[in-house]
């Protein structure tokens, strides 16, 4: 046991563990110290404390300078003051300096209202900027999913940490030095030419408007206003567990019914559920798993195992960029978003007798990478994408607010049919471990031919970055791996490459926590408890569903009967499966 040490903060005494930072000690005393660069997602094991912004400086008796509280550890007997005139003046001056190198377009900035910098300037009561001078300017970069307006970068370097240390994508780095220092891709190229996976974790942690998602709300409004278009919307599972936060509700509040009402009020012709497509994904991916597993068990040496999930577009980009040699291993099943698009524009359009080009499919996603995924060429027919627009949870909230809809007083409505029916299995797609649990429920029954009574596979749940479990399928021990966060995915893949780990199936989600922690979700502002609450909400919704296995979804059964034939059949292959590319950049000229 470590000894406790005593310190005083603003004359209030407190005992803390050795190694506790001043910031954390102050928090225990409910003393709020402002931070800009510091970020602690403790449930994810992510702590970012470069000590760079210098907003959290405090006065320590006997110290010559003003140390940053986020990294400075308490020592026994330390007397700390967080609000002396000296501290306040320094903090204010530092803020004035930061603002002097920041564009003044707050009112029309995408981050306005949710910007940490803006809030802090308000708190400090900044009314003028006495130190005006040259502002650093950079080229703006718009990619299919993310906009980089790095004139607004304050060098907190959170994005760099997410991109390199957590996601190990390596698209971003601090570049230049001094006043020109900023975070950017190699050679200041656009993100499009970098190994960026558009996971959006940089966007999720950016305290200012330097990194934002490509806003497609105007395009969606345009489609809604066009009388010739039939506008179909699909909403991803994780959205319903987070959207409420944008309207001041507690994290983990399920707002499925209100969301459906709001979408209808916005004028969507059909309000469907991506969960339906998630059930479809399980049918295809589960079948693929059982096929490969069966061959493997029969001794087929050429069969590719483990099978890797492919519903996360960030993850797909990741292996295309970083592990192209493994591109044959993941399941060829498209993601639920794309399966939905294909079914909507083929099966459903046919069914309601709307021409493909007159149908607009909009997806609401917790994700930034989905914007990129929908733009991939292989998901278009004659230039018409299966999914026309993909907006984030945040963008949907903007739309609702824009349309003067009082979210709180909306009644709970159901999704439309047939593409709105879903099972509990599909709901948990939104959290790490959910896809593989859903797949297991179906695979078990299909493999064993027996009915599964206990559908909760608790061993697959949790928040650890890498999890391993074995599921007993009536004697067949199926080894399952789970990773969320691309850094963990990399670790798992390296282990597989080295032959250290052997699995039959692996689920990978690019974002920490899975889709609930997606780059398009309401900002967590460094509070990782929010993700845990969202996760709980999804498991709750699953538990409350009448049908909890994908293959039992009656509309899925109808779809196969009426249109697709059988899972992994010919039509399925055409509409529901895809292929992958080697995207590793090589310069070598022969």
């Amino acid at each position, binding site marked *: 046991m470590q000894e406790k040490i005593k310190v005083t903060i603003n004359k209030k005494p407190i005992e803390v563990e050795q190694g506790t930072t001043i910031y954390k000690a102050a928090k225990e005393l409910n003393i709020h110290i402002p931070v800009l660069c510091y970020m602690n997602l403790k449930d994810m094991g992510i702590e970012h404390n470069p000590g760079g912004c210098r907003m959290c400086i405090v006065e320590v008796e006997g110290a010559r300078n003003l140390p940053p509280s986020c990294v400075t550890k308490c020592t026994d007997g330390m007397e700390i003051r967080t609000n002396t005139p000296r501290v306040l003046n320094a903090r204010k001056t530092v803020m004035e300096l930061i603002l002097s190198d920041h564009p003044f377009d707050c009112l029309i900035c995408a981050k306005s209202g949710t910007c940490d910098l803006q809030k802090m300037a308000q708190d400090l009561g900044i009314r003028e900027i006495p130190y005006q001078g040259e502002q650093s300017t950079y080229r703006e970069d718009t990619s299919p999913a993310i906009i980089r307006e790095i004139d607004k970068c304050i060098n907190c370097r959170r994005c760099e940490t997410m991109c*390199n240390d957590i996601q190990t994508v*390596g*698209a*971003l*780095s*601090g*570049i*230049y*030095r001094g006043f020109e220092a900023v975070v*950017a*891709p*190699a*050679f*200041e190229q656009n993100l499009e030419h*970098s*190994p960026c996976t558009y996971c959006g974790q940089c966007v999720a942690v950016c305290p200012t408007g330097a990194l934002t998602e490509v806003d497609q709300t105007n395009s969606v409004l345009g489609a809604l206003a066009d009388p010739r278009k039939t506008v179909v919307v699909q909403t991803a599972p994780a959205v319903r567990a987070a959207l409420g936060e944008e309207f001041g509700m507690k994290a983990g509040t399920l707002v499925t019914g209100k969301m459906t009402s709001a979408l209808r009020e916005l004028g969507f012709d059909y309000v469907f559920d991506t969960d339906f497509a998630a059930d479809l994904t399980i049918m295809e991916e589960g079948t693929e798993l059982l096929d490969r597993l069966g061959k493997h068990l029969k001794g087929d040496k050429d069969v590719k195992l483990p099978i890797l999930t492919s519903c996360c577009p960030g993850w797909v980009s990741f292996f295309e960029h970083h592990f192209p040699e493994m591109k044959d291993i993941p399941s060829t099943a498209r993601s639920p978003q794309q399966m939905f698009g294909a079914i909507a524009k083929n099966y459903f359009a046919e069914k309601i007798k709307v021409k493909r080009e007159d149908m607009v499919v909009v997806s609401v996603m917790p994700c930034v990478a989905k914007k990129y995924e929908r733009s991939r060429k292989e998901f278009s027919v004659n230039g018409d994408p299966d999914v026309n627009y993909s907006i984030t949870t945040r963008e949907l909230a903007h739309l609702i607010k824009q349309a003067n809809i009082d979210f709180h007083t909306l009644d709970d409505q159901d999704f439309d049919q047939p593409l709105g029916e879903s099972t509990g299995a599909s709901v948990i797609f939104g959290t790490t471990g959910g896809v593989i649990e859903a797949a297991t429920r179906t695979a078990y029954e299909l493999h064993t031919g027996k009915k599964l009574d206990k559908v909760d596979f608790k061993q697959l749940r949790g928040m650890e970055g890498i999890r391993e479990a074995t599921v007993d399928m009536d004697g067949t021990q199926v080894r399952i791996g789970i990773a969320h966060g691309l850094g963990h995915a990399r670790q798992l893949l390296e282990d597989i490459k080295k032959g250290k780990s052997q699995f039959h199936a692996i689920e990978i989600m690019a974002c920490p926590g899975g889709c609930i922690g997606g780059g398009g979700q309401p900002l967590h502002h460094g509070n990782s408890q929010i993700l845990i609450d969202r996760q709980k909400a999804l498991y709750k919704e699953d538990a409350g569903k009448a049908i909890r296995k994908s293959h039992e979804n009656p509309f899925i059964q109808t779809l196969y009967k009426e249109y697709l034939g059988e899972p992994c059949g010919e039509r399925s292959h055409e509409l529901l499966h895809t292929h992958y590319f080697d995207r590793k*950049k090589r*310069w*070598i*000229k*022969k």
Partner: protein
Amino acid sequence: MSSVKVELHQKDVDKIKAIAKEHHNEPEELINVLHATQEFFGYLPAEVQEIVGEEMNVSAAKVFGVVTFYSFFTMTPMGRYPISICTGTACYVRGAETVLDEFKRQLNVEVGVTTEDGKFSINCLRCVGACGLAPVVMVGDKTYGRVSPDGVKDIIDEYKDAE
């Protein structure tokens, strides 16, 4: 930092690979490798950095981050006769700035830029440690001491017609 587009040939790539290998492909040795690479190519174009990154198991973004952090590394080729004007304090108080201005005026280029004919480029460096000779100018490896604006022309002329 603008970069020149280059085409790399297999032998260039092999050279980078060899340099990286000499340094055990150890990410820690990135800076040493960049030194050796720049010595070979004369500068560090993006394409070269990409391969250095691949060989050293470091992302291209990070290689670029390191290259742009250190003033010794450059992404543009220097002139055949790179002119470096020392702007250390000793040279500064002895008039290095006027010498620098004169070089800029006569060659009609800014600091960090190469003349159109590719002959000269101007750079500033901090203290070559020859403060006794302040102000100091270096052309390639050759050092000129106690340079006055009047002497600038002579220095340039020395190289102007040289091939």
